[in-house]
């Protein structure tokens, strides 16, 4: 198996190599991030002032929907699948993923799914406009015609996710180098194993939900129509049974990344490895039984409401364990603050902040005021942008030298960090105030009392957007003419199998499995 990469475009189209596929995933997800980010910029530009200036309300709703869908399914999830592809075989000493051709299939479905989705913007009647949560009957009886394209692109996107996850599970369960027991696996591998399990469990439920929509729209069934004996709330239960685990699907791999980087720059082993594993499993378990905390205002019986409140509050416990472990890892280390570490520290602080607001949301009596307000928008951007996106950025800075054998520009990285950090907080901190003061989400326009903070938020958003362009530039500049690194380890404090292969990582690694002591 000494052969290297094929020449030309065919290398990328027909590849079976986990590193190539990882690279494809990462670039694809970044492209989607820019697209989804661009939609966010449209949203923020329209909300810069009260009144409708740039777009019409119906288009605003399309922007909100496409932003949410593309960010969640097109940007964040593929980004972490890309990291999984690159890193899991390296971390467990495997020659490749378990099923390399299916791996490539999982990737190539995505461009088709998202091109179909994006093309709805140009269709008569416009793109999906019912929010990323696509509640029935807005998404069924009252949907634009493009909803059928939305449904089928969700179907194949889901198929891609399921195949990708099965592949990851098979790789982790079956391809570990001799001696790499489960409890020796790096946490990134652990978090992905559990994430993949979540994905296999809930993506089919999403497929079921969109299938029911499809039937209600086109074939006269009445799942979500009370007139026929169905119930629109049923849709929400099914959606959130998928949707809540989905948010942990987004964050668990991020936890894995942070658990790799903080020890490296603390020069100290991760504190509480075992409890990290148990906490991850606990979070995954709890994520299945809390879904209706998104539905505190639909008029559930009080018993249901109380149950979902208590269960949701519990998630703070395992998540707290993680936060405390990270902080204690830093304690008495020898800290340095390179860009990946900066992003991880910001992750810990801002994610915890977002977790706190999550905990507040879980209190049903208060959630009647928070629900569907900008307070919720602020909450989930703290956990998803400062959580998932920050950790993804950290991961790229951390592993980029290993991937391409070149060092990024540290100054530029740090500048990007500070612009992103400050821009992020300017964008989303005021949204807490807006929400508490009564601004509902998904509003194309708002009363004058919300004007000031919206303007601040928009300015922050542009700033944060600029930081992303700088990031793109830095990555491209590194790949094209970064300073070469040849040290296997790249980072002084980094530990793990991936740092034992040469830099840049050869096309094929671990053709012969290493022996783990």
């Amino acid at each position, binding site marked *: 198996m000494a052969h290297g990469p094929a020449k030309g475009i065919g290398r990328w189209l027909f590849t079976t190599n986990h590193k190539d596929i990882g690279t494809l995933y990462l670039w694809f997800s970044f492209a989607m991030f820019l697209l989804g980010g661009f939609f966010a910029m449209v949203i923020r530009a329209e909300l810069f002032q009260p009144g409708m200036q740039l777009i019409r309300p119906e288009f605003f709703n399309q922007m909100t929907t496409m932003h949410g869908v593309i960010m969640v399914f097109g940007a964040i999830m593929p980004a972490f699948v890309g990291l999984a592809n690159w890193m899991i075989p390296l971390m467990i000493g495997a020659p490749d993923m378990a099923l390399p051709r299916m791996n490539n299939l999982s990737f190539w479905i995505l461009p088709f799914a998202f091109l179909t989705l994006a093309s709805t913007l140009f269709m008569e009647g416009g793109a999906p406009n019912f929010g990323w949560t696509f509640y029935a009957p807005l998404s069924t009886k009252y949907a634009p015609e493009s909803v059928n394209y939305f449904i089928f692109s969700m179907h194949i996107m889901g198929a891609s996710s399921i195949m990708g996850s099965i592949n990851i599970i098979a790789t982790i369960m079956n391809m570990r180098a001799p001696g790499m027991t489960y409890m020796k696996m790096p946490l990134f591998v652990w978090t992905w194993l559990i994430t993949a399990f979540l994905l296999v469990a809930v993506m089919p439920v999403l497929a079921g939900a969109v299938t029911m929509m499809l039937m209600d729209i086109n074939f006269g069934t009445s799942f979500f129509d009370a007139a026929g004996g169905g119930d629109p709330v049923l849709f929400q239960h099914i959606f959130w049974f998928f949707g809540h685990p989905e948010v942990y699907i987004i964050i668990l791999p991020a936890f894995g990344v942070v658990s790799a980087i903080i020890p490296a720059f603390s020069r100290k082993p991760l504190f509480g490895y075992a409890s990290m594993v148990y906490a991850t499993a606990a979070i995954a378990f709890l994520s299945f039984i809390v879904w209706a905390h998104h539905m505190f205002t639909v008029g559930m019986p009080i018993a249901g409401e109380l149950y979902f409140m208590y269960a949701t509050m519990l998630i703070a416990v395992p998540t707290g364990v993680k936060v405390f472990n990270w902080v204690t890892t830093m304690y008495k280390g*020898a800290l340095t603050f390179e860009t990946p570490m900066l992003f991880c520290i910001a992750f810990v602080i801002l994610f915890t902040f977002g977790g706190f607001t999550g905990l507040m949301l879980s209190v049903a009596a208060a959630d009647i005021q928070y629900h569907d307000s900008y307070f919720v928008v602020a909450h989930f951007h703290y956990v998803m942008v400062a959580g998932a996106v920050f950790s993804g950025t950290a991961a790229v800075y951390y592993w980029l030298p290993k991937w391409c054998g070149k060092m990024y520009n540290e100054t530029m990285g740090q500048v990007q960090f500070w612009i992103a950090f400050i821009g992020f907080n300017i964008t989303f901190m005021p949204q807490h105030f807006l929400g508490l003061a009564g601004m509902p989400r998904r509003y194309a326009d708002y009363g004058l009392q919300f004007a000031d903070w919206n303007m601040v938020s928009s300015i922050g958003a542009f700033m944060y957007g600029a930081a992303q362009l700088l990031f793109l530039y830095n990555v491209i500049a590194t790949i094209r003419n970064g300073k070469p690194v040849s040290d296997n380890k790249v980072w002084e404090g980094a530990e793990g199998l991936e740092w034992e292969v040469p830099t840049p990582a050869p096309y094929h690694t671990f053709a012969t499995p290493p022996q783990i002591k």
Partner: protein
Amino acid sequence: AEVSTRQLNMPQGVTEVSQAAYDIHMLMMWVCVVIGAAVFGFMIYVMFAHRKSRGVKPANFHEHVGVELAWTIVPALILIVIAFPATNALLKVYDASEAEMDIKITGYQWKWQYEYLGEDVRFMSSLRTSQDEIYGREEKGEHYLREVDNPLVIPADTKVRFLLTGNDVIHSWWVPDLGVKKDALPGIFTEAWAKTSEVGVYVGECAELCGKDHAFMPIVVEVKPKEEFNAWLAEQKAAAAEYASTIGKAWSMDELMERGEQVYLTNCAGCHGVDGLGIPGVFPPMVGSEVTMGPIEKHIDVLVNGVQGTAMQAFAAQLSEVDIAAVVTYERNAWGNDVGDMAQPIDVLNHKNGQ
């Protein structure tokens, strides 16, 4: 209830429920602030004290069952303590028993209908802000997007129960100061309640994405002293009776056109456009369409019964016969449609009864 742009926190509101929500919100916030201060404070100390540039050597410890147990158990205990007030607050929210009055609230795309159950009083409530203000052709007024034509009026010191439902999609009736947010689901009722002694005007919003004009269906609630409320209610009933007695009267073309334009602008222009051109592929145009230029019975029928499977709703329950007659007439004769015929309120009534 004037809100300044500096409002940063949840309003305390004027009901027991809004107060309960506020209290538990503040409690949660302070708990989080304290835990956050501890965690972040410790982190900042570590980042300062244990940096490599200060020449520290890294320690090598990596687990400690005692502390790990402690920071699992302590947060769990904190949560258990919090669960008590959180439960109590929720019980308050849910206690709609012994209401003295029922109001049915129906969410429509994109307006609200209020019906005083058992009183025969029912009206629509829609946004009053003009399109010109929204699209920046006119200065925005002080109450921009916070004003409606017919506010909901409720009596002070009375436990009012709201029964909510939706006509088309899900809406959500949110008035922060009353501490009420409840989804209005099509085909299913939900309930909420309010009781306050604070007379005043309270503004709220539709909180569930319901399509194009989700941001343009505000809620205004006027709380009046009991006697004033009773007087108001009597007035409404009288007006309804008065209306019923004049339904046979014939209206002139000019009268109908004038009233029709008003009705059109508040109820139809949102989708079909001020200029009657609609939105291609989404909402059909009025200009030169088969309905507006075709037989008038069909036109009335569309208004009265809506069009199944489309966003065109049935207006029978929303608009009076006069309004439907006026808007039909208007649509047939505006924008150069010039069909020339007109509909009388009695025609609409007959159409309704004829089914």
